[in-house]
């Protein structure tokens, strides 16, 4: 049957995308290692890092980096087609279970990353650290969470699925990037692993990346939650009922609100704000996995056997 073929192609492309991302991550790692070796980093006491560059070594590591970026773009292409084929195979919007949801979140994260990289090319060394959680999520999605292409239950048959789940995936994917950037910012500021951290963009650049993406992700997330409430009113008879998923979504929203407030509070602007941002993404991940798979609630749509 044609539809099962499409589902098969979709799965193959998913695997191909993961493989390409892994390769990109490895190349980023090689670039990272090569450039670190080619640089002598003098860490002054409290002063700025003094970097002594050796001219010929640089282009080679840079070539690895550029290859990694090209592969990332290729991976995004494969990933996107995989999701589209999944939708065609199941004859519905491809966001009906945890596997598809994870796939969409990671795609959103990768697209965000590429857009940010285009705007600030100096960000490239961060690539490895963005790809790592993405690859882990994709791996979990393809193994633990995998569900075959099939129609969804009646409660999910609504155009609100398209609105709510799509925006929530994009927002979650967007917020992954600031989570990573804030972690690296904290590493950079802590002064630990100085040799390793010295290759990263400056703390300031990382901080700005985290903030700029969060202020896009947060309103989108807010919209997604509101859309979810509108859908809940039509499907479950109430717009908000403190279902575990709703509760943790609320917690995540409050944490991100705290991040934005911390950015405007003296003494909280730097490390503390970054910690809050990391916490925010941790809550999002917690909501994605723990709440759907462990806690029983109305959002248990994992599509997992048993």
């Amino acid at each position, binding site marked *: 049957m044609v539809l099962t073929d499409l589902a098969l192609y979709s799965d193959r492309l998913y695997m191909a995308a993961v493989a390409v991302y892994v390769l990109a991550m490895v190349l980023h790692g090689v670039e990272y290692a090569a450039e670190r070796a080619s640089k002598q980093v003098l860490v002054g006491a409290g002063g700025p890092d003094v970097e002594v560059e050796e001219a010929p070594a640089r282009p080679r590591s840079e070539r690895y980096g550029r290859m990694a970026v090209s592969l990332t773009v290729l991976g995004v292409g494969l990933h996107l087609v995989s999701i589209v084929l999944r939708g065609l195979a199941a004859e519905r919007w491809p966001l009906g279970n945890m596997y598809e949801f994870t796939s969409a979140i990671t795609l959103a994260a990768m697209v965000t990353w590429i857009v940010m990289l285009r705007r600030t090319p100096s960000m490239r060394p961060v690539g490895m650290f963005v790809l790592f959680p993405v690859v882990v999520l994709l791996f979990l999605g393809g193994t633990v969470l995998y569900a075959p292409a*099939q*129609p969804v*239950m*009646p*409660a999910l*048959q*609504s155009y*609100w699925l398209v609105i709510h789940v799509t925006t929530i995936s994009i927002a979650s994917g967007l917020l992954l990037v600031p989570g990573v950037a804030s972690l690296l910012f904290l590493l950079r500021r802590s002064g630990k692993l100085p040799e390793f951290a010295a290759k990263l963009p400056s703390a300031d650049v990382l901080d*700005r990346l985290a*903030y*700029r993406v969060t*202020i*896009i992700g*947060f*309103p989108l997330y*807010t*919209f997604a939650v*509101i859309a979810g*409430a*509108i859908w809940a*009113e*039509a*499907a*479950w*008879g*109430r*717009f*908000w*009922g*403190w*279902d*575990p*998923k709703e*509760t*943790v979504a*609320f*917690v995540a929203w*409050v*944490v991100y*609100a*705290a991040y*934005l*407030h*911390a*950015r*405007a*509070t003296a*003494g*909280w602007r730097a490390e503390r704000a970054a910690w809050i941002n990391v916490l925010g993404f941790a*809550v999002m991940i917690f909501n994605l996995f723990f*709440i759907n798979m462990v*806690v*029983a*609630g109305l959002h248990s749509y994992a599509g997992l056997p048993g």
Partner: protein
Amino acid sequence: MATQTPTRPHGSPDSRAPRARLAWVVLRNAWRSLTSMRTALILLFLLAVAALPGALLPQRSLNQTLVDSYFTQYPWLAPTLDRLGFFDVFASPWFAAIYLLLMISLVGCVLPRAWEHLKGLRQRPVAVPTNLARLPHHDEFTLDMDADEAATRIRTRLKGWRRTETATTFSAEKGYLREAGNLVFHLSLIGLLLGFAAGKLYGYEGQVIVQAGGGQFCNTGILGYDSFRAGLRVDGTNLDPFCVKVDSFTADYLANGQAQSFDAAIGYQTRADLDAGVTTWRPFPLAVNNPLRLDGSRVYLQGNGYAPRFTVTFPDGQKRTGQTQWNTVDPTTMLAQGTQKFARPGVTDEAQRKLTGLAITGIFAPTSSGGKVITSVFPDLRDPEVAVDVLRGDLGLDDGRGQSIFQVDQSKIDSGALKRVARVNLVPGQSTTLDDGTVVTFDGVQRWVNLQVSHDPGQDYVLAFAILLLLGLFSSLTIRRRRFWARLTPITGDDGVKRTVVEIGGLARTDRAGYGEEFDRLRADLAKKDD
């Protein structure tokens, strides 16, 4: 918190005034620290932490059964948690305390800011700084035109900016909507909370099981419902009257048993219809995700199940037919469990009644596995069968105690007052004859639907405030408040041509995510040569 008390001797003539002032100072400081950003941050954290047990522990409002099983699982911990309100987190006083403090803190922070913003709207943009070169964005260029033309060019380019000018300087400011958005966002939060509270006070939610094939329900009082959750100010009188009749219910399943669609064809009569004495029903296709919306109330299709129909023919020829919904015990196969109770007709003697009650109790499988011990293998009605015990004796219906419609009174079986007289598997149309000649027939099965009626007068306000909140949030995070200045210095070159030196400066007032690109575009537009 320790407050310092002044060490002034008591009874001194001026002791009252300082004490009043002290009280004022304490109050003012308390208010200031409550409305400070740090307090808001801490309260936000507390709110997040306080909400978490609501997701991790079972909640009464969601699932009483899970709470009960938590009690049996952790008997040493559950009572303590219960006393602290951990099974009703969102109704607990400590959760309310946190969000109310947060709202007060918010009001205290936002209202003065709103006032400042309104004042700021009437003020003119700040005069040009003496040294524009010290601003984060700065440039200087010469235009081949006189000062008037240069001024016109700047004026045109700064359309949409709030600006003032003197003969040689321009001050402009833009992005007031950022602060406005911020204020709208915060004030909307309060509106949203009020709308939410209104729903909790004046709303209600009721569930009722109605059998398909003509079963009716009217929203006239709490007694009509199987379960009813009333808002704090709802006493069950004055419900919005309307009636619903369930004509049919259809469910579609995939081959693997996953549900694909649930549809109930219903008819309804609104309050106006009832008042006018209309007897016809307005048709409506009720489905999951497609509730019936009447003014003020909504009707939802929430669940479904089976109601087997039994006919009992007593030895004297009298017949009684009964059909009661059975409880679905396995939602994936729709295996159901229940009881159909009959009192023997014409028996008025109390002692006799206690001997002749009949109960048919057991399980129903919509698609039976067959065999002696049946179970259900598919949720749809393909091969229905019941496996039942027929019990005779005292059903306890006259005891004056309420009893479950799904079960017989177990104590009557234990005491021997209710005895099993048959155990049999029946498919529709089949019957069994009891020792006294009574014939029990399994006639067939009807579907039932679980309808939920919801009434929430606050939800439209909540939606309106949610939209406002979103608009406020978008503008407060995307719009940048920025200032722009220009100073014109006319010069006349050696060739006698009038030129103007334009010095410009820019400053983003709010965040660090730059105003550089916009400033560069402005500069490029202003400095470009005329064609």
